[in-house]
């Protein structure tokens, strides 16, 4: 079956980029049938680019991210994160749940990745204890958490927890940052603020970022390119370029351009399904 996936064949495979070609993933259902979660998906993210992926729930966006992260195997196709197999490169990730370690204070949570032996002898680890401390302090500053460095996660708000999570992901200076609906559990106001905070942080650090959400406006606000997915099986149906300088602020967040584009994407996501089911 031919998919509508739009292929962006940029020539870059240098540091920080993500290359996904013809990636497929199947699951066995409890009944023993094969469920195709991702059907020959292709995606090419340039180093330093911010890509958003929107799509209905169950379209396989999270599965895609877990594969990129090395938490799940794929069944076909090719995946390269920063030129290497997934799981081999330092990737940062921020999920919907902050999943902070309750026994570590805010700053110790941020330092978690730096404590691990895997970073030894890599440029990701700052030299010496002072280097680590300095990097943690910088990230706390960047995420406005300096005052809360010695708090435990249970003592801070959900929005702050998510900022700690972001700082923790960035501490290892990942070549790629993967975010899976990081703000969806937060209230609307906090979410908008965190969206702007993320703009500030990412544009300052310049990490390649893949951002998954089902909030269309959020996807547009953050991204250089918005990939729209469809489900059953999961595939890309369209890509939108968002031509706006980073860091983007509240003005862009409330602009008509976002509203227009978001209406268009909404229309695409809510288009009636073909009446005849597409044969597999």
């Amino acid at each position, binding site marked *: 079956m031919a998919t509508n996936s739009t292929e962006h064949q940029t020539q870059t495979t240098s540091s920080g980029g993500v290359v996904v070609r013809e990636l497929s993933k199947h699951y066995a259902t409890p009944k023993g049938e094969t469920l195709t979660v991702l059907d020959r998906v292709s995606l090419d993210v340039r180093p330093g680019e911010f890509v958003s992926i929107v799509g209905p729930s169950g379209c396989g966006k999270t599965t895609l991210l877990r594969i990129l*992260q*090395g*938490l799940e195997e794929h069944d076909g196709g090719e995946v390269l994160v920063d030129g290497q197999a997934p*799981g081999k490169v*330092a*990737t940062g*990730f921020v*999920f919907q*749940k902050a*999943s902070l*370690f*309750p*026994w*570590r204070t805010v700053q110790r949570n941020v330092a*978690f*990745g730096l*404590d*691990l*032996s*895997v970073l030894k002898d890599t440029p990701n680890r700052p030299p010496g204890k002072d280097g680590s401390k300095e990097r943690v302090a910088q990230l706390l500053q960047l995420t*406005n958490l300096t*005052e*809360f460095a010695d*708090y*435990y996660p*249970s*003592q*801070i*708000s*959900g*929005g*702050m927890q998510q900022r700690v999570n972001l700082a923790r992901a960035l501490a*290892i200076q990942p070549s790629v940052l993967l975010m899976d609906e990081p703000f969806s559990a937060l209230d609307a*106001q*906090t979410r908008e*603020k965190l969206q702007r905070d993320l703009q500030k942080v990412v544009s300052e650090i310049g990490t390649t970022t893949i951002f998954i959400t089902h909030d269309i406006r959020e996807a547009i606000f953050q991204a250089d390119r918005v990939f729209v997915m469809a489900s059953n099986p999961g595939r890309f149906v369209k890509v939108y370029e968002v031509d706006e300088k980073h860091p983007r602020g509240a003005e862009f967040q409330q602009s008509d351009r976002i509203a227009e584009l978001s209406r268009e994407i909404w229309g695409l996501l809510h288009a009636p399904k073909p009446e005849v089911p597409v044969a597999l």
Partner: protein
Amino acid sequence: MAEQLARPGASAGADRTGGGPAEADYRPAETPRQTTPQPVHIVESEKVKRAKVRRRSLIRGIVSVVVVLAVWEAAVRIFQPSTVIIVAPSAIPSAFWTLAKSGELWHHFSVSMRQFLLGYLVAAAIAIPLGLWMGASRRAHDYGDPWLTALYATPSVALAPLFVIWLGFGDPAHVAIIALVAFFPVIINTIDGVHAVERDLREVGIAFRANKREVFGRIDLPGAMPYIFTGLRLALARALVGIVVADLFGAQAGLGYLILTSSQLFQTANVFVGVLILAALGVGLTFALRVLQKYLTPWQVEVKGQT
């Protein structure tokens, strides 16, 4: 900043601690929360309210104890039963004093404490590492679980005569019995604790490419700590029972022995002395353990566990 409000969950957490280090973090004068006056006000008044509730609970507790003792005392004075059956609470301090002066009480107490500490520490020293291993390794769990389930279901007291046969009437048998009864709550809660560490947290470790040792040491172990403490606390109570049970199967000294021989000699006041000392030990050691727990796991104080 918009999100400086303490979450409801956070203040509930402070409530559970019943004061102490965790609550100290809410002292508004020292925290940046001071910049948002309203939440500080709320936190403060809640704190005052909680202190009031605590004080009221304490008063009620004292009233309860005093009333029961008074009724007991009055009943004994009015009905004047034989001192073989029951003595007035006021008779217990004098019995205590007589026993203490002769040095007899100290002897019993020190023998029991030695056995208790040895048994309890042996139990903890075996149960915690073994529990961590069984919690973290599927294979270890599969091999160990049938034994654990079977032995846990068996009343440990039933095994006490065996220890006496194997180890004789001396200290080793007593220590073994105490260790046995204290062992199960610790190991079961330790295993549960490792299992209860959220999968999400372990996945954070994996995604950060922590190796197995690091996932265990940096995630499983600290995550299981609150449960381990629950196990240790439950084991404390059982070990105190173990002291008495062990003495039933032959002893020359010990608090259980004191209770047993006093009852056989119809010295009921002395029985009460032994019982009250055990009760005080239970309260004191539980408190000590709580202090240790607050020190070692400052982020959380307790979780419910199984016996």
